[in-house]
């Protein structure tokens, strides 16, 4: 841990254009270190005091053939002097490292946008691999953009020419940091954070370390001294933020820490059972490293065993958590039903991705809401909560654990690929401020019955093996009320179904009242859940610029809903629900509250753009139909289809 205090560097003689916000996208071949470049830029930008949001765009293949279109990897960041809610609808500045990256991403750049091109790979061979018949640098096709082209690799080699103990190949690899130096200069970012990162990362190899440090500084200096960059020099002053200690965090990182926090606060060993699956594997990786917190991580043989083992661990007194994505939730349904019937504290995390079936493993979607509600057979209610931002993953992982233990009930937490990998500045919470998670195991044999319930929460006792005098049997067969033995009696079954439903329904009181943000007196309410939060806020900002009034309520407790949900949505003349699915929350709200909600849906494996939300707002306010899935085409697809 280090707190790096940095100031924006002085660049005398340069007149910088001050802007409120910029969106930058880095793109290159997947072996080119685009993610590293992007994440370093992000950390530096966060420390420079801007609000930001990021989203990586990973290729689906582990390693597609070098230089091809499917091998392109990208990273986008929007940063600002004011609030940032999304990683940006489209880049203002595109930095590309090879022809394939240019081809895939150039159509997303707005007219007069800036494209910085590393010309090193713009030879006949690479151009052909990217499907270019003519060289775009020469045929005028880039005329509507502001093009900065430079052979960054050559320039890097030149800058490092005096280093004797580093091979030419190693020097060429430093071009990432050279390019990063260029990016830092364009936006006046300090170099210190990345210089320190390089020193740490390469401390075992001082020569390579020095080469990379020199490359970073050289990229920065190069821009200082080269005229063509002067016209694209920007300044984005720091954003006003609440005082406190901040760090940059991705959703999955925040999630892992939320689970650890719950383990510490409850005093229960965290048992995390999981099977590797994109985009949830990182949670397992992160927790596996934290053994000094006593975390037991278990890479199970399959998704079913992951949840089954988690249930066994919860039965024996651990805080049981499993994490997966859509396909895993499907597999876990039967075991989840066992958790419902045995009323054990387990948390099931779904980091949603494009479906159905294998779908789009590296793309985001939020189409598992119905699955979380209804994948278990029978009347099998479970709690469902969902964070709205990467940072909220911490709070909701923690809350899922707290609710599971308090009510002895399985809790689903729905995140998605965008939240998991996207990052934002996060105010570090004080551990003393976290809600307590009291745990009281059953211990007194007198009057003990395995299903004798707490009158307020309806939770049954947590009676763990090893406790003398409480020996009892539980299982998946229906239970006699209170006594907990097997029962097939008709009235008892109905009673138990009602009790299990009532237990979940009472959890509504744990949900803070649904808040209406924005214009309280608006005609239109946007209701959303999960990661659409950022896009909705950004879309509303665009609407405000056009003088339109919009209210926004974002639901984090999806089952049960907050107690005032019906009241909130019935208050407005028009209600629109944007979702990255075909209308799941819309269906639930309509069915439950009899309100005619307009669904605004898209299922492209991409987050909503702010302007898509704006278009929906305008359509609904004008009484016109909104755009439906299938009615629009998105840029990259045209390219990949050879269009």
């Amino acid at each position, binding site marked *: 841990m280090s707190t790096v205090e940095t100031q924006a560097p002085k660049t005398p003689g340069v007149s910088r254009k001050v802007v409120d916000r910029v969106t930058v996208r880095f793109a290159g071949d997947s072996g080119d270190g685009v993610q590293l470049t992007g994440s370093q830029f992000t950390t530096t930008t*966060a420390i420079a005091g801007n609000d930001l949001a990021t989203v990586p765009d990973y290729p689906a293949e582990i390693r597609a053939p070098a230089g091809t279109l499917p091998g392109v990897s990208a990273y986008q960041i929007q940063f600002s002097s004011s609030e940032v809610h999304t990683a940006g609808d489209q880049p203002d500045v595109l930095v590309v490292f090879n022809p394939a990256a240019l081809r895939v991403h150039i159509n997303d750049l707005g007219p007069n946008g800036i494209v910085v091109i590393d010309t090193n790979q713009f030879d006949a061979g690479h151009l052909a691999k990217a499907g270019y018949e003519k060289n775009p640098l020469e045929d005028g096709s880039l005329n509507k953009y502001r093009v900065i082209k430079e052979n960054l690799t050559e320039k890097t080699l030149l800058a490092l020419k005096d280093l004797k103990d580093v091979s030419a190949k190693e020097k060429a690899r430093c071009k990432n940091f050279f390019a990063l130096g260029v990016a830092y200069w364009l936006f006046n970012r300090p170099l210190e954070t990345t210089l320190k990162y390089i020193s740490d990362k390469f401390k075992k190899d001082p020569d390579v370390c020095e080469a990379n440090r020199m490359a970073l500084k050289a990229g920065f200096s190069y821009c200082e001294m080269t005229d063509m960059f002067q016209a694209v020099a920007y300044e984005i002053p720091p954003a006003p933020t609440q005082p406190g200690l901040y760090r940059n*965090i991705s959703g999955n990182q925040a999630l892992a820490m939320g689970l650890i926090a719950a383990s510490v606060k409850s005093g229960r060993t965290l048992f995390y059972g999981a099977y590797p699956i994109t985009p949830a594997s990182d949670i397992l990786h992160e927790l596996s490293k934290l053994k000094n917190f006593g975390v037991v991580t278990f890479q199970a043989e399959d998704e079913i065993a992951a949840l089954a083992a988690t249930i066994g661990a919860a039965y*024996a007194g651990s805080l049981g958590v499993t994490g997966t994505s859509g396909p895993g939730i499907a597999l876990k349904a039967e075991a989840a039903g066992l958790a419902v019937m045995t009323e054990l504290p387990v948390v099931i995390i779904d980091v949603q991705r494009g479906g159905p079936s294998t779908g789009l493993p590296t793309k985001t979607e939020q189409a598992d809401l119905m699955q979380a509600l209804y994948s278990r057979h029978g009347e099998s209610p479970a709690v469902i909560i969902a964070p709205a931002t990467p940072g909220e993953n911490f709070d909701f992982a923690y809350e899922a654990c707290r609710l599971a233990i308090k009510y002895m009930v399985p809790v689903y937490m729905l995140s998605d690929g965008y939240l998991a990998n996207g990052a934002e500045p996060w105010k570090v919470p004080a551990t003393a401020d976290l809600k307590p998670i009291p745990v009281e195991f059953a211990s007194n044999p007198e009057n003990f019955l395995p299903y004798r319930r707490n009158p307020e929460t309806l939770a049954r006792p947590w009676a763990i093996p*090893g406790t003398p005098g409480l020996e009892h049997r539980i299982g*998946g067969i229906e239970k006699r009320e209170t006594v907990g033995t097997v029962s097939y009696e008709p009235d008892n079954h109905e009673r138990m179904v009602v009790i299990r439903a009532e237990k979940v329904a009472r959890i509504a009181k744990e949900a803070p009242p649904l808040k209406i943000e924005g214009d309280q007196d608006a005609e239109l309410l946007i209701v959303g859940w999960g990661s659409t939060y950022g896009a909705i806020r950004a879309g509303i900002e665009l609407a405000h610029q056009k003088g339109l009034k919009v209210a926004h309520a974002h639901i984090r407790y999806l089952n049960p809903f907050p107690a005032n949900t019906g009241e909130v949505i019935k208050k407005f003349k028009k209600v629109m629900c944007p979702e990255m699915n075909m209308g799941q929350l819309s269906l639930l709200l309509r069915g439950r509250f009899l309100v005619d909600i307009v669904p605004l849906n898209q299922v492209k494996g991409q987050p909503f753009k702010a302007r898509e939300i704006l278009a929906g707002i305008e359509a609904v306010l004008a009484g016109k139909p909104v755009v439906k899935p299938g009615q629009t085409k998105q840029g990259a697809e045209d390219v990949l289809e050879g269009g």
Partner: protein
Amino acid sequence: MTTAIAQEVPKPKYTKADFQSDQEVRWCPGCGDYAILSAAQQAFARLGVPREKFVMVSGIGCSSRFPYYVNTYGFHTIHGRAPAVATGVKMANPELQVWLITGDGDALSIGGNHLMHALRRNVGLKILLFNNRIYGLTKGQYSPTSEVGKVTKSTPYGSLDHPVNPISLALAAEATFVARTADIYIKHLEDLLARAAAHEGSVFIEILQNCVIFNDGAFKDVTDRVMRDDRQVQLEHGKPLIFGKGRDKGLRLKGLDLEVVEMGKDGVTEKDLLVHDEHCESQALAYLLSRVEAPLPIGVFRDINRPTFERRAYHQIDDSKKKYGNGDLDRLLKGGETWSVK
């Protein structure tokens, strides 16, 4: 582990009745499970282990009703998944003595995957597989151990599957303790259960069990009082493989196979017979024995030691704490690059 002379905690004294729950046993009259239940309750009572430390974990099937009849902690889980649930139980509290009750359908059909992984991990689970070569609870379909051509409700023209051999499978899955017995060998079963309790690591015991309603007499060859001395061979560590009513037959190695020989004929003596070795590191001997069906080997095929999964997992945790100190939540949250806003 303390080396000081500690006050010895007196071992609890139980009787069989202490391990009987108040539930009326609902297996069919004449079912082999009654005998197994009785032997288990007897064996548990003698182990000197506090009753609260026992956990019975079962899947689905007639076998899996077992936990309801034993007065210990019990978890009747879902079909095939008991090994996974039990692994979680053992990992959460390695001090518990976890017994896993399953059947040929539960463990070898839907549960085959989980069984293999539990065994190869060497999790300290004592797995009792009641093999009756049929699906009893669902009223008579064939199972993975049913013989080819078995006519059942779902295979009226005879089953097409070649059966799997549970002992061979367990050995291939690297199980560290593998044994076979039958429901009517009550004393033998009790002894095996005592050995199972003492073994650190996975235990796999195939219990040939008679389903009196849907597959009566499946093991008659081996269990019938008149025939059995000639139809089975007792495995005893360090002893030659002799069987037969008059102890006049034996098994001897012929190339990579085992052949039945008559003692005294063609100069065959006890010295020619294969001597059983439970503790061979290699599974080869045990595997060879597992392929023999006549005479059917009864007893312990393999008993070796290998560090258990839970012990190694907690070792890593302890090592990590020693290396990095106990986890500090505040430090974790403030990790990475941070900056202050005043």
